[in-house]
Every structure is written in C-alpha cells, then in structure tokens.
C-alpha cells in the first residue's frame, strides 16, 4: 500500500501516509447523509421563532393532512414518554435546568425544537412544518449575562435564581496582601464574542429498528459513541445492550459533536415507534441555532505585580452567557469554570482569586468547543501582561520569561492546584522568539511605525492540559469523569492485527496513529494492521474523542495490550520453531530466532492457533486477543509560544497577519505531518476567533448571523503561512505522548489579540472587545466614536 514515505526505523515519529484518508480523497467516504436505508423516512423540526415565549398551543393537524406526512410529534405528546435532559449535577450549580426534547410549555431560545415531522422525503417534512400553527405568548428576554444576574431580571428557568446555572468563588494564597504590597496593579476588561465550531458537516442521525441484532441502531455524526449509547438507552428507557451506535465518517467535531442533543434522541424514539428507519440531517441554518455555541464571555481581571514584573496575585471576575440550558452531559460549567480556573496558564501565580458565573440567557446553549474556556483565559491574561510590561518598561518577552514556570522548578503546583511537570514553557518561548528573530522584528516595527505604518507584535504562551486521567476533571464539578479507555488487539487468522477502540476520528488520523504505535510495540508491519474505531458493536468501552485525549488513551492502551499480546506471540512462536522463549523475537510480521535462521509468520501462527489448537499445549494458546484499559491518572501539559506580527490599516481597520511563528511542546510525536495539521488547523480557528467570527444576537434574542455570509470563518486568504517549530519533551503518560488538538487555538487567540492591541497602542489606542473587527479596531483608534 502507501505506507512508504518518510518511514524511519520506527513507525512512531514517521509521517506515515494515512490509508484511512484514501476513501475521502477518492470520493468514497461514508458520511451520515450518505446513508440511505430501504423504507427510510425523513425528519424535519419546527423551531421556535421566539427567544422566550409561552406556548399557548401547538396545532399540527394541517401538517398531518399533507400527503407524504407520516407523523407530526409535539412536545406535549412526547411528554412523559421519555426522560428530559436535567442539567448534570455540578458542585457549583446555581440551579437546575430541564430541557424537554421538544418544547412543552415554554421555548427558551430561537431555534429550540417544538415539533418533529416525519415524512417520505425531507422536502415534504419541511413543507409540513410550515403548516403547524403555534400560538406564542412572548415573555421578557434575558440577552446579557450581566443584566441577567440582577435580582430584577426575568428568569429563564424559575428554578435558577439570578439565572445562575453555575457560580463559583475561589481563593488560594493571600490575595489581599499581594495587592496591598504590589508595586503595580494592572487591570483590564476583556470581551470575547459568541462562537460556533462550524463543523463543515453539520449534525445528523439515522435511527433504525432491528436493523441488526440490536433493537435500535443509531448512526450519528458524533465524537462519543458509547456515551451516546448510555444516555440514549437511559433516557428512552431501554437496555443499553439493545442499542448500537455507529459513527460514520465525520465532517469535523471540535467539541460541538461531543454533547447530547434532543434531535437525535427524538429520531431514535420515532424509529422505535414507527418501526421504520428515520433520518435527520441538520441544515446549516439549523446548525447555526440548534447546535451548541461557544465562549461569549466578559472578563475583568487584575494582577498585582512587583517592580521587576513578577506576578504576585491574579484576581478575576468572569461572566459567561451560557444560553438557555445547561448543555447536556457537560453542564453549563465548561466555559465559566475552566476560564477562571485555568487563567494562570503556564505562569507562576502565587495567589489566585476568582468569581465566575454561567448565566442563563435566551440564546442557544453554550457547549464545548476546541480548548474550552482557555483561549479567553489566556488572551485576557496575555493582554494584561503586555500592559504590565508597558507600564514597567520591560520587554513583553522578558516579562513572560520572568513569570513562566521554569523547568527547574518542576514539578510545580500552581495556585489553581494544578501540577506542572515534563513541559517546556521557557524553551517554547525562547524557540519561537529565536526562530522569529524577535529583536529584529521589534526593529522592523520601529521602522514601520516611523514610515507611518501601524504594526503590532504579539507574543502568547499557553499551557494545555491534555489526556486527562481519572484524577483530573474534564468537566469541572460534574459527575462525569472520563479517564479510562480500552483497546482490543486481535490477531486475525489472516495474520492481520485488528485494533479496536471507541475513539472515532473527525480527521485526526487516530487509526494511523494507533497502527504506528502497535507496529512498533508488536513488530507487525503497518500494512498488516487495521483499526475499528467507530462502532459500539465492535469496539471495547471508551469515552471517545475530545479534550486532546485520543492519541494519549488509544496509544497508551495499545502499549498495555501489546505487552501481553507480544508475550503470547513469542511463546507460541518459540513452540512452533522448537526453540526456547529467550531465543525468539518478533519483527516484520513474523517470529524469528535471534540468529534469523528460522521464522514463522504471524499468519501461519494465527491460523494454527485458531484452526489447529489441538496440536498446541493449552497454556501456550490462550488466544490472540487482548483488551486493556488505560488510565494515565493525571493529565499531561502540552505547551506553546506563538509570535505574531500584524499590520493594521488605520483607514479601514483591517488587520493583516504578516508573520506567524509557533513553537510547541506536544510530547513524543507519533506522526509529525498529522500533528502539524492539527496545530496549524487550530491556529486558523484561533485567528478566526480573534479577527472574524462572532454570533450576534439583538436585544430581543434574535440571532443575526445564521448564514456563512454573516458568520465569517477564515478563508485561505485570511490565514498566513505558519512557521512551526517543536520544543517537545515526553510526558509521563505511556509512550510520552501528549494531546495536540487544542493548544494552538489558545496561543493564536492570545498572540493575535496582543499584536492588534500592540499596534493600536502605538497611536494611543486600545481594544478590549474581540473579534477585532474593522469597526472595533477603528473605535479603538478613536477613528470611530464609542471607544474600545
């Protein structure tokens, strides 16, 4: 096959070409919408046009009369038949939100599903939705989290006083004393707008009754097949063993496909009731309002700093507009708790205080999106560090070097109680500034400014906790604590190794990565290894793909299982070759004597093991199948430092990135080309977050950016060539791996926002609200009224 390019002695560390990409490049991928089953019906949802309203009545009788319509299901009819989504218990809950799969008495955001129509084709189902008559009684709308927490604000949920879905106050170290004795106190406000993961493939599902030996089979564009299986069974009142969840090729996830939503569960209910397959594919306009949003934060932070620029304490207030419901499974705590709690990032912070809230509003719920919470935590602190550097007349890079956790101080427990170890913060910053020739860039900036150009330079350092084991929370405060995943290794009678795990890919090439690790651990050729990662019927238990965990868990479990399988292979090989166990090794898909005089192929061994078991002593033939669970216990910090140069056009407010240098520590690399793709892709999303992307609502809770002409994601012209360098150090996890999926979006938001603010500061301007749209840049420069 094609596993040829760049292959070193070891597969790990080589840019092995991913066979798994071949169907995609040839046009034979199988995405959710490509599935067609005989007799399949199609589902469309009627969605709320109001942000907040009581439903006086929902009359679907005309819809039901339309030829081709099979069923129109209202919230009242579904009520009592399935379990609604109650917000996941969280230690820091303000109050409980209850989300019905289809709205019953009230709608709480524009786009909330009210009715499901089943028809013979999608167009008819959509036509029928138009015939449903809904009598809305509009209610007062909560559209801003800072207004929403006031005592007099209307309530989104009667069970949530002050609209708090999440609230936490934290203090460690002597914060008051630090601020008292500080030489300098710097303060800033920071605002990041609402985002959308914008997977190019929106959500969707096909649900079928008795399509296989399972009662219910659900194909779903999702990151967590086993978690879906568990909660779907629970909420619909079935045995989990009767449900099979299959994830087809998935057109992006980025966290948006890591939550559980009502629509897919409604489809499963309909398939069971109608005993016919049903399909729902979210169109883009639906996706912009019905799939989780992200970020939407207001931060006020201040730092106590000594005369040399050392941080003494950090204090922050965070408001997150978390939308109408606590996102199911993860709770509303993701953004508010991670932003405030992880604010220190890679810097030594002796004393930390924060108050953070997730305030319910009448908007689409906020859920996980790439690097949850941390981009804004990082960017707000980086902007503050730049301000401290300006005030103290210390170079921003020097100020960061004084505050980064140095390698010699590790293991280092920071004021947010996280332990930093095996991570290269200082080396990353030094590498990016050396490669980027930082001193020369500053000189060029001076020249550019003298020539009348408005140029800014931004530097940001980040820490990203990846591959979280059972002792570290992914969803802070929640009961849901993923941290163990399993891999099954099975040597088939063909001699081909199957690696099975519930770790589906949305493009991260996890199959290729696990094949590379297994090849090295077992001495099996890459072309003799295949992966199954997306079907609960074929994979052992696992949580799935999110939180920069998959390579760490998949590879760790492969290493554990391979240790046992290798012993079994060697033992049988030695027996078949008639030599002692110490005399054999396994390489190139065969067991060899150490002097290579004799060998037996894995194919022959596997055939004998299965088909000729009577000729083999039982103790030497326990079977070529091993399942191992892996729990790295703690997480591993990945790191990076990004250096960005921008030119700002003072006439138009346009920001152009003219240089982008990144240095990252992602631990031991499995496949360099894949890792580069992850990092550069994350940077592109971070640039979009910093400059372009924003979901805008008006005061009545109406979304104003529901097409791709309004919600701007970066094009090939918006992303510069990224210069990427590595300062890797192995983690303590098996194999030394770290996650690399999310860190770069953190560094990108910080570095780009700092570069823009640096440019504006050269003309006495500033900017506090992001994305840095042309309008905001011009306000920041005082060209337009309104301030920054």
């Amino acid at each position, binding site marked *: 096959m*094609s596993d040829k*390019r760049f292959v070193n002695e070891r597969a790990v560390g080589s*840019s092995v*070409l*991913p066979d798994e*990409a*071949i169907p*995609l*490049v*040839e*046009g*034979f*991928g*199988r*995405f959710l*919408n*490509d599935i*067609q089953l005989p007799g399949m019906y199609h589902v469309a949802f009627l969605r709320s046009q109001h942000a907040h309203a009581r439903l006086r009545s929902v009359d679907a009788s005309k819809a039901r009369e339309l030829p081709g319509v099979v069923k129109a299901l209202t919230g009242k009819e579904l009520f009592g038949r399935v379990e609604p989504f109650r917000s996941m218990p969280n230690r820091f809950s303000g109050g409980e939100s209850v989300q019905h799969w289809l709205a019953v008495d009230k709608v709480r955001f524009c786009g909330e599903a009210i009715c499901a129509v089943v028809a013979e084709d999608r*167009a008819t189902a959509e036509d029928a939705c138009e015939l449903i008559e809904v009598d809305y009684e509009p209610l007062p709308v909560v559209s801003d989290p800072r207004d929403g927490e006031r005592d007099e604000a209307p309530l989104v949920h009667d069970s949530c006083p002050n609209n708090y879905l999440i609230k936490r106050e934290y203090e460690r170290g002597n914060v008051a004393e630090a601020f008292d004795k500080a030489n300098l106190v710097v303060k800033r406000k920071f605002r990041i707008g609402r985002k959308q993961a*914008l*997977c*190019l*493939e929106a959500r969707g599902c096909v649900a079928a009754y008795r399509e296989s030996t399972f009662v219910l089979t659900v194909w779903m564009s999702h990151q967590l097949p086993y978690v879906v299986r568990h909660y779907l069974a629970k909420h619909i009142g079935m045995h989990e063993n009767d449900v099979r969840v299959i994830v087809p*090729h*998935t*057109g*992006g996830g*980025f966290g948006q496909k890591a939550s559980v939503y009502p629509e897919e569960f409604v489809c499963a209910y309909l398939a069971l009731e109608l005993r016919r397959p049903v399909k729902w594919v979210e*169109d*883009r306009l639906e996706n912009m309002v019905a799939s989780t949003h992200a970020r939407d934060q207001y931060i006020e932070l201040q730092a106590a700093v000594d005369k040399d620029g050392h941080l003494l304490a950090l204090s922050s207030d965070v408001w997150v507009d978390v939308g109408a419901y606590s996102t199911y499974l993860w709770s509303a705590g993701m953004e508010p708790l991670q932003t405030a709690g992880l604010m220190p990032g890679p810097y030594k912070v002796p004393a930390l205080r924060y108050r953070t809230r997730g305030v319910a509003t009448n908007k689409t719920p906020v859920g996980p999106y790439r690097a949850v919470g941390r981009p804004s935590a990082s960017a707000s602190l980086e902007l503050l560090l730049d301000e401290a550097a300006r005030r103290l007349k210390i170079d921003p890079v020097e100020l960061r070097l004084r505050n980064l956790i140095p390698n010699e101080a590790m293991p280092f427990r920071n004021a947010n109680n996280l332990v930093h170890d095996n991570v290269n913060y200082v080396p990353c910053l030094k590498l990016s500034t050396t490669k980027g020739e930082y001193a020369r860039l500053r000189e060029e900036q001076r020249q550019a400014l003298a020539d009348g150009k408005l140029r800014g330079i931004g530097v940001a350092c980040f820490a990203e906790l990846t591959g979280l084991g059972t002792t570290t929370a992914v969803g802070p405060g929640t009961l849901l604590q993923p941290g163990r995943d399993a891999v099954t290794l099975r040597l088939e009678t063909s001699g081909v190794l199957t690696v099975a795990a519930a770790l589906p890919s*949305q*493009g*991260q*090439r996890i199959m290729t990565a696990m094949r590379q690790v297994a090849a090295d651990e077992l001495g099996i050729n890459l072309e003799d290894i295949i992966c199954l990662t997306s079907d609960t019927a074929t994979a052992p238990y696992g949580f799935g793909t999110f939180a920069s965990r998959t390579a760490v868990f998949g590879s760790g479990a492969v290493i554990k299982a391979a240790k046992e399988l290798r012993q079994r292979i060697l033992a049988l090989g030695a027996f078949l070759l008639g030599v002692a166990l110490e005399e054999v090794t396994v390489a190139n898909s065969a067991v060899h004597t150490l002097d290579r005089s004799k060998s037996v192929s894995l194919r022959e061994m596997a055939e004998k093991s299965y088909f000729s078991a009577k000729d083999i002593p039982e103790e030497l033939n326990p079977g070529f199948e091993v399942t191992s669970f892996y729990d790295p216990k703690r997480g591993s910090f990945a790191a990076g430092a990004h250096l960005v140069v921008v030119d700002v056009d003072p006439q138009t407010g346009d920001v152009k990135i003219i240089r982008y240098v990144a240095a990252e520590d992602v631990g031991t690399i499995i496949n360099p*080309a*894949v890792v*580069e*793709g992850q990092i*550069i*892709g*994350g*940077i*592109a*999303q971070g640039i979009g977050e910093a400059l372009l992307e924003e979901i805008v609502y008006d005061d009545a809770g109406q979304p104003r950016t529901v*097409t*791709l*002409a309004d919600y701007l*994601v970066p*094009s*090939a*012209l918006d*992303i510069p*060539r*990224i210069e990427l360098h590595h300062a890797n150090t192995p983690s303590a996890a098996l194999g030394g791996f770290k996650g690399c999926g999310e860190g770069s979006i953190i560094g990108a938001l910080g570095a780009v926002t700092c570069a823009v603010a640096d440019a504006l500061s050269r003309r006495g301007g500033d900017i506090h609200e992001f994305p840095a749209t042309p309008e905001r840049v011009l306000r920041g420069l005082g060209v337009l009224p309104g301030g920054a």
Partner: protein
Amino acid sequence: MAREQRIKVTVNGRTYDKVVPVRLSLADFIREHLYLTGTHLGCEHGVCGACTVSLNGRSARSCLTLAVQADGAEIVTIEGLRDRDGKRHPMQQAFHEKFALQCGYCTPGMLITAIELLQEKPDPTEQDVREALSGNICRCSGYQAIVEAVLAVARKEFV
C-alpha cells in the same frame, strides 16, 4: 408549471436520462438520484464550496444549481477524477501525500476548484492558489497543506 421535467446529463462520462422534480438541486440529484455521495453539502447557500462540481468545464456550486439547469451538461464530480485504470488524479494523490485533508468534508470541492485553477493557470503563485481556493472553506487544515499540495501538482511533483 410542471412539477417534474426530463433531463439528460453526462456525469463522470456516463449519460443519464431521468425525470426529476423541478425543485431538485443538482447536488441532491447527484447524491440521491445517482448515488454519487462524494459531493458534499456544507451550507446549501453557496458559500462553503464543499458541493463544487465541474459543470461544462467550469466549477459550479451544485447546491445553487437546479438539476433541470444541468440538462444537456457534462459534469465531473470527485468520483470521476480517477483515470480509467483507477489511478488517482495527481491532485488527489497530492492531497493524500501532503496531508491536505483531515475530516475530508471540503475535499470534493477543493479538488474540483484546484484542478480548474491549474487548467487556467498552470504555474500559479501561492497567492494565486489562495485566491482561487478562497471560496472553499476548510475548517480543519488551516489551508497550508492544501496550498502546498496544489503547488506541488503545479510543479509536476505528482503526475
């Protein structure tokens, strides 16, 4: 107005004679009537470019084109890019070897657009490539590997 109309189109070298609803999009025709699901729908309002096909030699948004508008046309989709022996088009091979796709959802539109670019401008600059691809959204890659793949094909590194 008639709700259905007869059309004759050639897709990937094969001619089809079909009666289709007049409101059917070309994308849905290709995907659901011809079962060529390699063409993807990302926005259905003409912005993302995932549904781009070659229509009479020019790239076209199949989500904004009606099937009846394609009557008499010659269409090439991603499935038609391999040669008769099944060998991948150089652009497909370059996308594969340069790691120019992650989730693969934008890939059909990217390939069609990139191939059209090199037909019109065989020796493009990096800026030319970025401009040509600027109507095709990729959410995964940051575009760098895609741009490199297109430039590598222009340099005849893949044939």
